[in-house]
Each structure stands twice: as structure tokens, then as C-alpha cells.
């Protein structure tokens, strides 16, 4: 009898201990530096070597770093169309913004704030130096001056996107999103960092942006170019070596479109979750009470009740 309850209490302590251990390990992993994937903010590695030709440098940088979100004269994508931007804004401001966008935004610069509001996400820091920013601006200037005809930039990703059978594609996309199907090139599943409404009880990660309204915000084209180039610091670290395949991108977009359209229900999950938590807590309390019920038993009262033994 006693031994059984001793054993039960030992098991529960052991389980709690194990849980604490796992938690500690997790914290240690997250905090430990070095691991490339574990890093919260991967530093930019040395800037890649650009084509030697100085006049081509601006173009090279643009294609590598800007084109994912911006066009020159082909309309707005993830970010604004940059045609004629040099005429529109102060050059000094532009250079500062290109070099250190996060800082400018953080300072509460009115233009930057307005842009963030309009486009729904801040421009990431691309690690350009001031001379490089100059080169890019010159390139944009030359392109703006030339024509609006040749949309030099975009090898329009939309063009490559695979046409998909809608219903099924969303399903495949969901499985890709939550990691049930592994990404072909070995990239991390989106759910590790992103949430999207209606994705299981626990939801997705909270480290990066909630993607429930991503489709509405960025549109087909914006998403495609984003996923192709993964321009954000953390995503660069994760996906540069293991890019998403074109069909995977299409499936993911289909999934995001669908969840966005369904305008699903984080509000519905919450009460269930709380109720489940409360219920679990009560059940645990009950179990402890049962297992440890002898803890307050006195001896005098039984003596009185039993008289002589």
C-alpha cells in the first residue's frame, strides 16, 4: 500500500524532473551561440563578390538583393515600385534608408513609418554599404530614365509558377507548411517560426510574423518573389542553401490563399485550449489528491473512534 503510493509519487516527481530537464535543454539550445540554425539573428557573411565591371555593379546588387521585392517600372510588388524614386525622395535619405532601414524605422521617421503601414512589413536590412547603395541608386536612375518598357528585373516569378489544381494544392501546401511533408531541399518547415490561423491546437511559432493575412497583404506575385529569394535575415540563413522548389512555392501560396480566404478562427481555438488546460489541471489535482491522500491522516482521531485496539 505505502510502497505503491511511494512509487506513484516518485514516478510523478520523475516525470516533472524530466520535463524540467527538457525545458532546460531547450533554453540552453536556444541560447547557445554558434549553431547556424539555432541563431536568432544570423550575421551577414562577407558581402559576396560582385561582377568586377563597375557599371554593372549596381545591376548585380539590385538583382541579387532588391529584385525580390521591388520592380523598376513594373508596378508594386512586396515593396514599392522604384521607378523614378531618386526624383521623388531626397538622395541622402534614400541612402540612409537602404543602408540601415531598421534603424530609420526605429527612429520613427515619418516616411518610413508610412511605408511600413502601407506595405504591411518593414524593409529588412540587406547589409549594403553606402557606396553600394550609391551604385544601386545609379542603376535605378538609369533604368528609370531609360524606359518603363523593359521590366528588366523580374524574371517574373509568376511566370514560372506551376499551375495547380486549387483544392488539392492547398492541402499539399498545408502539409508543407506544418512540416508533415518535408521540403525537398531540406529547408525548415514554415510552422517552426510562423503561425497561420487554424493550424492545429497549439498554432505555429511566434518568432516571425503571423501569415494568416499574408496573401491579402502581398498578393500572388509578392509571395512568389519573397519565397524564391527569402530576403529576410533569418530566412536567408535558413533557405539560401536549401531553397524552396517552384512547385512547393506554388502549393504554399495556394494554402496561404485558402486560409486567408477562410478568414479562419484563432478566436475559436482559444477557449478550447483554456478549457482543456483547466480540465487537465483539475484532473492532475485529482490524481495527486488520490495518490497523496494519506498525507494528512492523524492518529488520535482513529484512536478515539476505535477505542482499545
Amino acid at each position, binding site marked *: 500500500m505505502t510502497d505503491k503510493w*511511494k512509487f506513484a*509519487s*516518485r514516478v510523478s516527481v520523475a516525470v516533472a524532473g524530466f520535463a524540467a530537464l527538457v525545458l532546460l535543454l531547450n533554453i540552453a539550445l536556444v541560447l547557445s551561440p554558434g549553431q547556424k540554425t539555432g541563431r536568432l539573428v544570423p550575421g551577414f557573411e562577407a558581402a559576396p563578390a560582385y561582377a568586377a565591371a563597375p557599371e554593372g555593379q549596381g545591376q548585380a546588387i539590385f538583382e541579387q538583393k532588391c529584385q525580390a521585392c521591388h520592380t523598376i517600372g513594373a508596378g508594386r510588388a512586396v515593396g514599392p515600385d522604384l521607378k523614378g524614386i531618386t526624383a521623388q525622395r531626397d538622395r541622402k535619405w534614400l541612402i540612409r534608408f537602404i543602408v540601415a532601414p531598421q534603424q530609420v524605422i526605429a527612429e520613427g521617421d515619418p516616411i518610413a513609418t508610412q511605408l511600413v503601414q502601407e506595405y504591411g512589413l518593414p524593409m529588412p536590412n540587406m547589409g549594403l554599404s553606402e557606396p553600394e547603395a550609391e551604385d544601386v541608386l545609379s542603376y535605378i536612375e538609369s533604368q528609370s530614365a531609360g524606359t518603363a518598357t523593359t521590366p528588366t528585373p523580374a524574371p517574373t516569378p509568376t511566370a514560372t509558377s506551376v499551375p495547380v489544381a486549387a483544392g488539392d494544392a492547398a492541402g499539399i501546401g498545408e502539409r508543407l507548411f506544418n512540416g508533415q511533408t518535408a521540403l525537398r531541399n531540406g529547408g525548415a518547415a514554415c510552422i517552426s517560426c510562423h503561425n497561420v490561423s487554424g493550424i492545429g491546437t497549439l498554432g505555429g511559432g511566434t518568432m516571425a510574423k503571423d501569415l494568416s493575412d499574408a496573401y491579402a497583404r502581398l498578393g500572388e506575385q509578392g509571395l512568389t518573389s519573397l519565397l524564391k529569394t527569402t530576403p529576410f535575415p533569418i530566412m536567408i540563413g535558413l533557405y539560401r542553401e536549401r531553397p524552396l522548389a517552384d512547385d512547393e512555392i506554388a502549393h504554399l501560396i495556394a494554402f496561404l490563399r485558402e486560409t486567408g480566404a477562410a478568414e479562419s478562427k484563432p478566436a475559436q481555438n482559444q477557449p478550447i485550449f483554456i478549457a482543456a488546460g483547466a480540465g487537465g489541471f483539475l484532473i492532475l489535482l485529482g490524481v495527486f489528491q488520490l495518490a*497523496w491522500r494519506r498525507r494528512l491522516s*492523524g*492518529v488520535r*482521531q482513529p484512536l478515539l473512534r476505535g477505542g*482499545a*485496539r
Partner: protein
Amino acid sequence: MDVRAQLSMVFHLDKCIGCHTCSLACNNLWTSREGTEYMWWNNVETKPGTGYPTLWEDQGKYQGGWMLKGNSLTPRVGRRLGLLTNIFYNPYLPSLDDYYEPWTYQYQHLFNAPLGEDQPTAKPLSQITGRYLDIEAGPNWDDDLSGSSVYARNDVNLAELTPLERESLFRLEQMVFFYIPRICNHCLNPACLAVCPSGAIYKRGEDGIVLVSQEKCRGWRFCVSGCPYKKTYYNWKTGKAEKCILCYPRLETGQAPACFHTCVGRIRYLGVILYDAERIEATAKVPDNDLVAAQLGLILDPGDAAVVAAARRNGIGDDWIAAAQRSPVYKFVKEWGLALPLHAEFRTLPMLFYVPPLLPVIASMRDGSYDLAEAEFFGRVESARVPLKYMARLFSAGNTETIKRVIRKLLAVRVYQRAKAVGDIAEERVAAMMAEADCTAEQAEQIARLTSVPRFDDRFAIPPYHREETIEQIEQLMRHKGHVGFDFNLPLERGL
């Protein structure tokens, strides 16, 4: 030989009158604070009885003390790993009801009551909740065998008696009882210390007093379970354990502990003994039957030159060795073999020894008068009203031979003194009894003297502590200047 000094005690039960002065002295000095209302570091209980807290001797319930598993000695509540995994679950504790809910009376009502038909009364109030209380039990509820149908009958030490023996104990004309005053035994192998998860309990090097560090204690209460005598208590106000400190602040200034000093029956003796610490573990592993003999064997003769030399090597000062040589405890326990430890079978090697009481012999009422069916004046060992088996349970780990030897000697001394003072006992009979008890005339005189007319200094051989010198080596004296209290040393808040 690893000689150490221990401040040890003897209580002479034949002299205890059950007045509880000792308990009150202790209570006034140490446990009259909030959180300690229910504690009696010194308590006096009636035997047969279940004591305080109720049934403290029942280790099936409380899991106190040590047990012998094969050749290894383990605390009954568990070893380190078992304790740590069960640290939030310890059912082996007395509940407040097993101690008692402390109470006071609404005295103010006697003065403030409005004019009425009846005399105002002072109703009992709980000292814990402050509400009115129906008093159901107290630390001495079974005093003088009151409530014996519940308490005395459930004394665990009666387990080995036959139903007939038990019945006869409680028959009206044969009812018999005696008192046992109890304080912490300041054991050589303290179980309270062994089971403390915080390492808060320690045994002082110089005199073996067992103390709870109020700074290290984290209130796990395993000492409460671990001590088989239930002599550590949990202070619900401070969240720490407390226990008898043998009035060390008094000892260090050359005074006897409060309960010793105030004892009305003068039953208490205190003195230094020297013991061999090397053999503690081996002694605690001896089978029950030889346990008492082995424990007494640990105590060394302070007159032996080899012992004195070894004591000096261990840093015991000459004045302490001298105190050990005039220790009344050594005389009672070793020289005369009259005092025995209480419940040696708990294996904590308690350092408080009891001279067992000589109880009345069996008699019966015949024709309305008391008929002693006994030839001897003080009766014989075999016809004691409390069966030897019961006494053996208490004082000699069940070994009736040991207790018989002690009682025989006590009887011999009485007969010797009676013969001397009154002269109505035949000389041969006295000589025979003295021989049987292995007692010389000189020893009998000494025993009688130390038992009946001892002076203060005979009862208490308090060694000089030199606290004023030694403290300078471990404390910065000025640091606590102006601080007071039993609690943490904090400055007084006084003034404007």
C-alpha cells in the same frame, strides 16, 4: 580511539512527581512565541499512555529513527534519493490534532461581561485561529491515567503483554502509572540530522548538543518524521524547525538548563561523558538484545590514563576532562549501571538516560483492607505491578535481563538504607540482596546520597565553556552588538 565529549543527562524517574514545572520553565524561556504555542520541548507524560504527540513511539505511523537492513543502517523515512523524490510528499508527520490545538481563555470576558444573570466565564479560544474551541485533547490529556481506556490502553509498549497482563494493569485496584519527562536526547547518531534535506541540523563539536540552523532550515519537516522521539517541531510562523537546545546559552554561562534548574523533584542530573566516536556506527548496528550494553560500552572511563591522553589529543581541555571525572551521569550510567536509554531500539544512541522507577508490587483487597501478598518489605522484582516486559520495552530494547539487574540494584540500595535507618530487615537478607545486585556498602551509600540529598553542584557538573575566548576565533564580536533574539540576529527597532 576517537574521544569526544558529550553533555549527557540522567533523569531519575522514581523522583518525578509529575508537576510539569520543567515544561513550564522551558515554555516560558523558549516557546512562548507565535508559531510555537503547541510545542513542548520538554514534556512530561504518563506511562502507560500514548504520550505527546499521540502514539509517538509507533514508528509504523511516523517512520522515525533507524532500521537495520542487512548490515546497513538506514533512516526509516528513507535514504537521500528516496527523500528527495518524495520531498513534497511526507505523510509521516503528526497532525496538529496529534499534538493538540493550543488554546488560551477569554479572560477579558470576566472583566468586560455586561451585567447578567450568571457569573461570566472564560471560554477557551484557539491560539491558532482565535475562534472558540471545544477542547478535545491536550499534551497531557492522559495525565495520571485519565482517559486511559483510550490512551493508556493504546500504549504501543503493551504490545508484547498477554491480554491478562494488560487487563490486570488497568484493573481498578491495581492501576499503576509513572511519569516520563522527555526532552531531546541529543543523540550520538541523530536521525533528525541524517534525514534533513537542507543539511540544517548539526551536532556541536564541543558538547554534542544537536541544533537546527534557523538560517539553513527550509521547512521540509523531515526531521519531524526522522526523530523517533518527535522532539523536533515545525514553527508555522517562521516556517522553520525548532527543537530543544539544552539551554546552551545558559550552559555557556555556567547555569543548568531551565528544566534542570527548576525541577521540583530534583530528578535531573547533567554532566560530561567521554565517548568513542569511532565505534558509533558499529554500535548502532548491534542486534536489539545487545544494543543497550553496546551503547553503554561507547562511554569511556574518564579516569583511564589512555582515555585522558586520547581526549587531550582530540583537543578536549583538561577542565572538561576534570568535569567528566566528576560527572554524576558517568556514575549513574557506568559506575553504578542504574540508568538506561529510552527506546534504544530506535538506534539513535540517545544521550539522555533514565533510572527506571520502582513501582508498587501486586497486592489485593481482602476483607476491606489492603493485603500485601509479599514477604519482602519493598517487594520483589518479579512481582512488580508493571510487568518487566513493559519496562524492558521502554528502557532496554526488550532485554528483560538488563532491566532486571537495574531494578534489583535499586531495591538492594533501598533495603540497605532501610536496614541502616530503621533496622527492621534482617542483616543476612540485606547482604544476600546486595550480593545478588553486585553492590557494595560503599556504593549503596553513594547511590543513596546522590539520589536523595544531592546539592546543586552534585547534580550538575557543568564544564567551563570559555565562550568568551572561543567565540573570538569564529565570530566578529562587534558585528552583532546591540542585536537580540532567538530569531535571526537583527538590530532592535526602538526609539522615536
